[in-house]
């Protein structure tokens, strides 16, 4: 069985400073998302148990210029090979675009029986990409998986729901998105990191996938309320006078009685 693990890299959120309400990402190193590490660990565990034969880490660079370097962590964690899709047209793709690219890449890969994702990315956590890819490739999908077992031509998962745990089985090929309870990802040792250097790593562009550059469907605008200075007005007098003065002030400011 061949497993493909889809891995997103994002700026290490713990290192991002906020200055004047803007996240400062310049110089912040990227790393593989937490849930993607869970997915990788699940894949490598399956291979180590003999249930899978090959694990490929697949990463859409999404503007990370060092994605081909950062993905080596996946190789050090035990993936057998890695593919990075890096293209200037993919600097800031939306979820639909990422899903389309992953679907095209999976089609190009020679074999994929099980497609693993994190349930959501560490930065945006839209939780869309796994389901979208499953739909594009017409695969059954199991979400919120807290266990992943593969046997013969089926994958079986326990799903964490609010008050129950479901056990779901799907025929392979299938897509599974995992939650953090699934395992404790390993921290690769130096030897693994050194060995990762010689594992196969390919970088593909959109042309290699033979698809057009996806057009983002919307722009994201900030939904933060505008910052305002406080007025520091103190009203004096009886409660009634204060209330009256307060209402007058609100009307003057255009807040009331428009």
């Amino acid at each position, binding site marked *: 069985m061949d497993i493909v693990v889809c891995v997103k890299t994002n700026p*290490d959120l713990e*290192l991002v*400073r906020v*200055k004047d309400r803007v996240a400062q990402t310049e*110089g912040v*190193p990227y790393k593989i998302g937490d849930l993607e590490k869970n997915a990788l660990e699940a894949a490598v565990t399956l291979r180590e148990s003999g249930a899978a034969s090959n694990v490929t880490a697949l990463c859409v660079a999404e503007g990370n210029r060092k994605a081909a*370097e950062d993905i080596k962590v996946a190789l050090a964690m035990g993936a057998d090979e890695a593919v990075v899709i890096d293209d200037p047209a993919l600097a800031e793709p939306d979820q639909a675009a990422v899903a389309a690219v992953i679907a095209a890449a999976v089609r190009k890969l020679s074999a994929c029986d099980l497609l693993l994702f994190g349930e959501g990315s560490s930065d945006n956590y839209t939780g869309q990409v796994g389901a979208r890819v499953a739909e594009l490739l017409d695969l059954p999908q199991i979400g919120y998986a807290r266990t992943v077992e593969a046997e013969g031509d089926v994958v079986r998962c326990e799903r964490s729901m609010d008050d129950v745990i479901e056990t779901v089985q799907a025929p392979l090929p299938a897509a599974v998105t995992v939650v953090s309870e699934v395992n404790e990802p390993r*921290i690769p*040792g*130096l*030897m693994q*990191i*050194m060995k990762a*250097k010689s594992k196969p790593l390919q970088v593909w562009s959109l042309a290699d996938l033979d698809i057009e550059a996806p057009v983002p469907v919307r722009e994201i605008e900030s939904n933060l309320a505008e910052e305002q200075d406080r007025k520091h007005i103190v009203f004096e007098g009886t409660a009634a006078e204060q209330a009256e003065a307060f209402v007058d002030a609100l009307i003057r400011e255009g807040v009331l009685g428009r």
Partner: protein
Amino acid sequence: MESVECIVVGGGLAGLSAAYGLAEAGLEVMVLERGDYSGAKNVTGGRLYVKPIRGFYPELWDEAPFERPVARELVTMMADGAHTTVEIASDRFLEGGPQSYTVVRAKLDQWLADKVMEKGAMVVPNMKVDELLRKDGRVIGIRAGGDEIGADVVVVAEGVLRLLSSAAGLAAQPQPRHHALGYKEVIELPAGVIEDRWHLNPGEGAAQLFMGDCTRGMMGGAFLYTNKESIALGMVVGMEDMRRRRDGTESWQLLDAFKELPQIRPLIAGGTAAEYSAHAVPEGGITQVPRLAGDGYVVAGDTAGLSFNALVTVRGMDFAVASGYYAAEAIKKAKAAGDCSAAGLASYEQSLRSSFVLRDLETARNIPGVMENPRLFTHYPAAVGRLLESVYTVGEQPQAGLVKKAWNGVRRDFLSLATLRDAWSMRKI
């Protein structure tokens, strides 16, 4: 055991400088850095004297992400509420390439690590080395977690604490009397405000050192360096003095007290504290430099004790880069000759001895001893303040003449047996 040609322990300026030279020569190099990235665990006051190292890897320094070239040097002596500042702005500080820059290590070291990787070395972050492996007295590799990796040569650039090198018997355990605690806040201010407050042309920077009662009689002082859009404001205090102190003041409170002084408050007004950091600083001088090379290893940077505090010039990062450069040169020679023993690596120490690194440290040999004189941090800053204050004072009573005032001050505070003794002890610094 798996092995590589060279392992560099520590991805700071010394380690990266060595790795750059080795990788450039085509040697197989692996740098092990315990931080998230090079610079993540490093702390500087903030200034790198780049002049002495421009000749090493000259292609690098013009594109280095420095903060500001230092165009103004200020020294402030403070006591009893009187601050006396000497300010030097010289064209020579900037001519032919500035002699020094303020730096932020998180940026500078990360950039240098990228350059090292471009040369083909492997830089592994988040990797702590747990042990230097020895066999028959020779360093044969390292252990990190459960993995042992061999190397022809290990460059030990683990920093000031010498945890690995002292455990392996390569260097003495660091003692408090040879070290200071340096700690600082990085305070964000707009570039224009920084330039206004320190009278700087756009892009230029200032370095300001403070001596006197900010350390309450302890060896050390305060410092202020202007970055692009922040200032680094901190203190350096001798550890031995700090350790013996019993008055209940905690080290970190000195900086807060300093920030509250009426002379300092306007310098940082409106600023936003952005980071707080601390590190031990080697100040033992040349007497604390260990054996620099042995069978299978060289020692560089702070681990080698290559730094000094000469009151107005505080150096270490330039020595780190230089020692890394000479380490790489020596290792290249040793590898070519197929002899990575102490004898094969002996050119490392020879190069450092004939270069500015050990020569400047030799010149500064007596400074650490002189710095143990508490009058340097109490009497003199106060005396200078008293003298100038009296010259500038206009009171209700008829005033003595200018020369008389000055002469009184000199006679009171500078013409004493103690001062003569101090002058005698300082003749060799």
